[in-house]
């Protein structure tokens, strides 16, 4: 239960949209409940659930691609608990749009390390790639995001 806000955050970033993120989060919670026997006590529950969320999201993405339905509303920004200031709204929108431009593998690397605070090793374990690959995806994603945001970071 304590994990839910963090799972929601990762889902919103992964799915590129808070509403889709909550769908993904719900699917993850349901699957985690079904598969709870498979979780090894003593291992990290959060990593286990992040990995599960990622797998569900990849499956869903493939299904969506098959349906050739990949349109994402340009204007759909982060609508959760927004502060209301015009300037703030614009800034939030820029980050959301910037993240959407990243290839999935770079976006998840940026989210896991720079938002969720995982070590490179933990993030690599969640994604299922070598640490060096994760490091390189992170740098490429970060540079693309910085370029998107311009020098106003």
């Amino acid at each position: 239960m304590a994990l839910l806000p963090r799972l929601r955050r990762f889902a919103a970033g992964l799915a590129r949209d808070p509403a889709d993120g909550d769908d993904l989060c719900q699917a993850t919670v349901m699957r985690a409940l079904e598969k709870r026997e498979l979780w090894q006590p003593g291992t990290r529950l959060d990593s286990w659930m992040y990995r599960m969320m990622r797998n569900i999201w990849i499956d869903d993405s493939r299904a969506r691609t098959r349906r050739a339905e990949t349109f994402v509303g340009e204007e759909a920004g982060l609508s959760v608990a927004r502060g209301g200031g015009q300037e703030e709204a614009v800034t939030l929108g820029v980050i959301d749009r910037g993240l959407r431009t990243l290839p999935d593998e770079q976006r998840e690397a940026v989210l896991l390390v720079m938002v969720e605070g995982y070590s490179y090793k933990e993030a690599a374990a969640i994604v299922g790639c070598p640490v060096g690959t994760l490091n390189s995806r992170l740098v490429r994603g970060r540079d693309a995001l910085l370029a998107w945001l311009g020098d106003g970071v």
Partner: protein
Amino acid sequence: MSVTREELAAFADGELGEPRRSEVEAAVAAEPAMMDEVERHRTLKARLALHFAPILDSPLPQRLTAPLSATASKVVDFGAAKQRRAARGVARWGWILGPALAASLALAVFLPHGSQAPGGYAGPQLTAALDDQLVATQASNAPTRILLSFRNRGGRFCRAFAGQAQSGIACKDDQGWRLRVTEAGAATAPKDYRMASSSAAAIMARAQDVAVGPALDATEEEAARGRDWR
């Protein structure tokens, strides 16, 4: 010495092992362009943390909590799992800084750019807040809010705080709470969001520079208060 961009990122994230970490540290110190890149990396990280922080603080929709509360009793014990993580000392910065930054956002918005490092000690009002307030239980309208607590290299307790008069980091020594980094508080500064994110980044970067190990969780913080932060 050549440093790859990947190594520089790993250095900024505290991921490099020795002896490479020291080598890169020396190279960064000698090369302003590299220092800039490390700073940009950390600033982006702080900005992303701020961006996603509202999600952590917003109420959970019922459709997410309902399946859990229905089966909570027979399900994995989330509390125990969390304790095991804490026992292994992996309460990570990102987790704690997210909510802390969210809490400080309203104040951070008004922080001016730049900071000075005075050698002074906290005054009576600030000392009281640093002595008594816990991150988990403090009043939401407290004049000074504690953002997080940690230990520095000397093993002393330090706390990052934000308030009307000033915001910054203070570390406890024999004479009191010594101010390490301070910035003018909410009362005096311009309202500029862009400055806010870089200023929050500055406090966070300084906290990470000063800190050894993860930030204290609620239980550790309460224990530290019981020992008068010594």
